[in-house]
């Protein structure tokens, strides 16, 4: 009998801790499949954040480090500059990466650290139950902006790919989504390119994955997937911002 689908080797047997309809599970699988396909599982060191994916050290079957909030790019810098042959990735949410972690990602990117950053953008703080994030959309209600994000009070959301593209250190920056199969296929391609960028020693690689949070958007899983397509993609355009031509 032919095996057409199986759990990647780079994922453990441990149960995932995410909500039904959360994109983390899907994204974990894509990252793990890429690690398997590139044959680098035994060289990989992952750095997981503070946020819903804090427990990712239970799920990726490789050496894992749990980092303090926002600091994964600095931790990853330390690892890569100690074991240059390791394949080092960070896995971070929107609060982790671009609220408290802004300094670390900007400088790791500016230095062109040879790490791969998987940035999961679901426009809200999930683990702490639904507060405003730097990527929350104007008008989107959260527990700390119940009337909806008001640009006059809370400013406008940050487009991370565009921001980091102004730097010279990044060699691959892409934004993808996983809200429908056609997007999932392209997302995996980008994630693979990102890891290949690291293997080829070209510079920092980052993939922003537009993701769902049905629990704290107050939607069903299916409604949440539609919301990503209808509301997030127009604000956060998909594409390759740096390194797409290779």
């Amino acid at each position: 009998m032919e095996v057409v689908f199986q759990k990647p080797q780079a994922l453990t047997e441990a149960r995932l801790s995410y909500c039904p309809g959360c994109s983390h599970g899907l994204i974990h699988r894509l990252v793990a499949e890429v690690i398997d396909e590139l044959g680098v599982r035994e060289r990989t060191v992952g750095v997981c954040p503070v946020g819903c994916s804090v427990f990712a050290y239970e799920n990726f079957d490789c050496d894992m480090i749990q980092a303090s909030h926002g600091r994964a790019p600095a931790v990853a810098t330390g690892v890569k500059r100690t074991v240059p042959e390791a394949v080092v990735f960070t896995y971070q949410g929107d609060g982790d990466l671009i609220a408290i972690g802004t300094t670390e990602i900007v400088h790791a990117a500016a230095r062109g650290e040879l790490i791969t950053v998987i940035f999961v953008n679901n426009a809200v703080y999930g683990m702490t139950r639904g507060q405003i994030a730097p990527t929350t959309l104007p008008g989107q209600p959260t527990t700390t902006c119940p009337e909806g994000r008001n640009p006059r009070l809370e400013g406008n959301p940050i487009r991370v790919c565009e921001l980091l593209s102004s730097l010279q250190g990044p060699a691959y920056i892409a934004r993808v989504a996983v809200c429908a199969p056609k997007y999932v296929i392209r997302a995996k391609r980008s994630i693979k390119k990102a890891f290949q960028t690291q293997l080829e020693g070209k510079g920092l690689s980052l993939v922003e994955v537009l993701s769902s949070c049905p629990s704290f958007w107050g939607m069903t899983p299916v409604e949440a997937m539609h919301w990503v397509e209808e509301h997030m993609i127009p604000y956060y355009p998909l594409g390759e911002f740096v390194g797409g031509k290779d």
Partner: protein
Amino acid sequence: MPEKLLMKGNEAVAQGAIDAGCTHFFGYPITPQNQICEYMSVHLRAAGGVFLQAESEISAINMTYGVAAAGGRVMTSSSGPGIALKQEGLSYLIGAELPCLVVNMVRGGPGLGNIAAAQSDYWLATRGGGHGDGHIIVYAPATVQELYDLPHMAFDLADKYRNPTMILGDAILGQMMEPVEMRGRRQEPLPEKPWTTTGAKGRPRNIVNSLRIEPPELEQHCRKLEAKYQQIAATGTLWDEYGADDPEVLVTAYGTSARVCRSAVSQALEAGIRARLLRPISLFPFPSARLRELAEQAGKVLVVEMSLGQFLEDVRLAVEGRVPIRFHGRTGGMVPTPEDVLGEIRAAVEGT
């Protein structure tokens, strides 16, 4: 014949770390320790190590965390405001049981304070290492030679017990120049570390983590750390003594204050006062037992420090109220004088 060089304190601690096998250094400019970063940027690189000026003290302690997890022998340095920023990172290092060396060349505080010498980060060092139950091992040099020697001890202890360590200096010690006997680069290989995250080839995967979401598990982990500190206290408590064998007054101080006290005690001895100086070198673990013994023998204690009374608290805890304690403190960058300390010694003995 070991080489002897006249060195500045900041350079001595950096060279000491390099000779002890330091592989990585991350720093950020802040007076009065900038020479540590500058020295490392040239000499650590020349020795084949990795130097990076980080974008902040927070980034530096987190780079330190990454190197420690991956098995490197890593150091970072700063002064008060920057050490305050590092507290969360230190707590993670403690919780994840990672080794490293942090150097604090203390300046006047609180806030921006000033760039003169102080000892007002004692609480930050001994009660710090961030939030939660845990400690960093703290050493207090009083000479440039000790600034050179202590990194060897600190790194070895950090590796053996998997815990961060700190060298607590100050602006004066950092800038002063004294002769240093060099021991040359460490020849033995660094200890094996099977728990590091380097890529899980040929072994089960390793996880470096301080999260223990179930309370019974976290309590068990904290008790394990507690046992570690008790072991370190049993074998690694360090101090120095000077003065009369049968003291009538015990003087206690560390670092620069201890240098001043040594002069004062010298003069006291010449004047026929039986003074003895106990100078802690490890601040955590603290030489409580010996201090209590000498305090009881002398019948009175004089504490001298460059703060309003932080080290004083640990002296009080050690003495347990058994004998009177006198305190002479200067702060904000002011340094006690031997004359003033001698005056306090006389007053202690005369009971005034």
